[in-house]
């Protein structure tokens, strides 16, 4: 039963995956008046606040700053939210795991996917900003699924890794929010890359999210298509994350039940 290959068990438990995703979405907006509208309002309001802050206090020379900002925010926000909820997925679902056999990777996966669904909703916010700021809708937009896919795969990989490690080392829970804060400052979300001093710019080179966000901006903001090389590189980054996540998860999952 345990040796079933990944795809086979994914297929067998596809109903469960669906059910888990809809459960997450249901619980997320339960008892809020605006419900799903929050996925749309949240990025817009956040962008508004940040745009105000950065137009009056710090000034960056970026054309169409609101759009620049909301793209970075959407991608990084998805990554940080999805991996944070995935982190607790095994621990939260321990009661289920202890009573029925379920492939365990399904829990971090479903959490990342439900965040992904929310993020797709918030793309409407980007659309609204594009309309307001008169950005032309060009055919390059058809490439939009690519950066979304990169970010999704990358987040699944990180989510699996961190959910497995957290079971054994609960300290990760407390540390991760700090890591995310540092990570967000090391990602050009609200500032242009040009303000990063040349001697520390190399740090950005090791930040996969920087490439994904840049890819997205190229398509939406500058109406250009990144070249094949960049695309392949982004793919490699996200696949590498998944492979590492899966290997670590597979190694650690044997004793999950004894530690949850």
């Amino acid at each position, binding site marked *: 039963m345990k040796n079933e290959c990944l795809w086979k068990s994914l297929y*067998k438990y596809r109903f469960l995956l669906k059910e888990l995703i809809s459960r997450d979405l249901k619980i997320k907006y339960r008892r809020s008046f605006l419900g799903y509208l929050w996925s749309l309002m949240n990025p817009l309001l956040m962008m508004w606040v940040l745009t105000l802050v950065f137009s009056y206090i710090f000034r960056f020379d970026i054309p169409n700053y609101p759009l620049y900002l909301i793209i970075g925010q959407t991608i990084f926000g998805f990554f940080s939210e999805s991996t944070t909820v995935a982190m607790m997925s095994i621990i939260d679902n321990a009661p289920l795991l202890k*009573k*029925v056999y379920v492939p365990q990777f399904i829990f971090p996966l479903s959490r990342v996917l439900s965040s992904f669904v929310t993020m797709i909703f918030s793309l409407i916010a980007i659309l609204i900003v594009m309309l307001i700021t008169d950005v032309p809708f060009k055919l390059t937009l058809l490439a939009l699924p690519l950066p979304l896919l990169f970010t999704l795969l990358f987040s699944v990989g990180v989510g699996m890794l961190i959910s497995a490690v957290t079971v054994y080392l609960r300290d990760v829970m407390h540390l991760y929010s700090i890591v995310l804060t540092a990570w967000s400052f090391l990602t050009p979300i609200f500032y242009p890359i040009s303000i990063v001093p040349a001697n520390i710019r190399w740090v950005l080179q090791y930040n996969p999210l920087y490439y994904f966000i840049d890819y997205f901006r190229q398509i939406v903001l500058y109406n250009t298509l990144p070249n094949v090389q960049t695309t392949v590189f982004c793919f490699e980054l996200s696949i590498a994350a998944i492979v590492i996540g899966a290997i670590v998860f597979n190694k650690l999952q044997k004793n999950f039940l004894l530690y949850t």
Partner: protein
Amino acid sequence: MIGELYMTGNIIEIENLTMRFNLAQEQFSGLKDLIIMASKGKLKFNEFYALKNVMLKIKKGEAWGIIGRNGSGKSTLLKLISGIYTPTSGAIKVKGTIAPLIELGAGFDPELTARENIFLNGAVLGYSHRFMQDHFDKIVNFSELEQFIDVPIKNFSSGMVARLGFSIATMVKADILIIDEILAVGDANFQEKCYKRMCNMMENGTTVLFVSHNVKDVEKICKKVLWLEHGQIKMVGNSNEVCQSYQNEMKE
């Protein structure tokens, strides 16, 4: 492997099954202690054998009772059969689908309502939303929980949770039904109803594994009984013989 099982008519084959748990001997309170203890070589684990060299062959359609004192390894055995635990050594071959009812609330989310949990639990067992929709009324009917169907499970009594769990697990037609203690919390009426349904299922070829501390119930339902003690098989055989000796020893 599965071919072999077909030939012999066995639905479950267990060979030399051993399950070892490492119980942490000393609770370390932080990283500092952990490093100090690990460097001194003091980080020892107490090995605990929950099951030792268990052999068992179960034929399709048989009803097996599993008895023994608390901590004798009954639940561990059922969890190994359901695939929840991986054995330390030995082999388990299972042919067919399992509907496990291990302890209370066979995989429910306390935050969700009974209605939502029916679909979640169905999906855990591998059934689509549509399939569960088709059987929804029958499940609710059998559980007699119509009034509480939109109440979150966390507000249910243990008896109500058991009703719901039993209704779902027996409605989906699994090849093997595992029932661990859960009927003890139901009232007499509901227990009677459950026994009837289990007998019905057995007539239709479902294999039942039944754990209970009530030896009378075990005798009533099961033809064969496995008696575990300290993780090892103490006795295995026809239900009246094993139950008799078990009761004799309990009296001493």
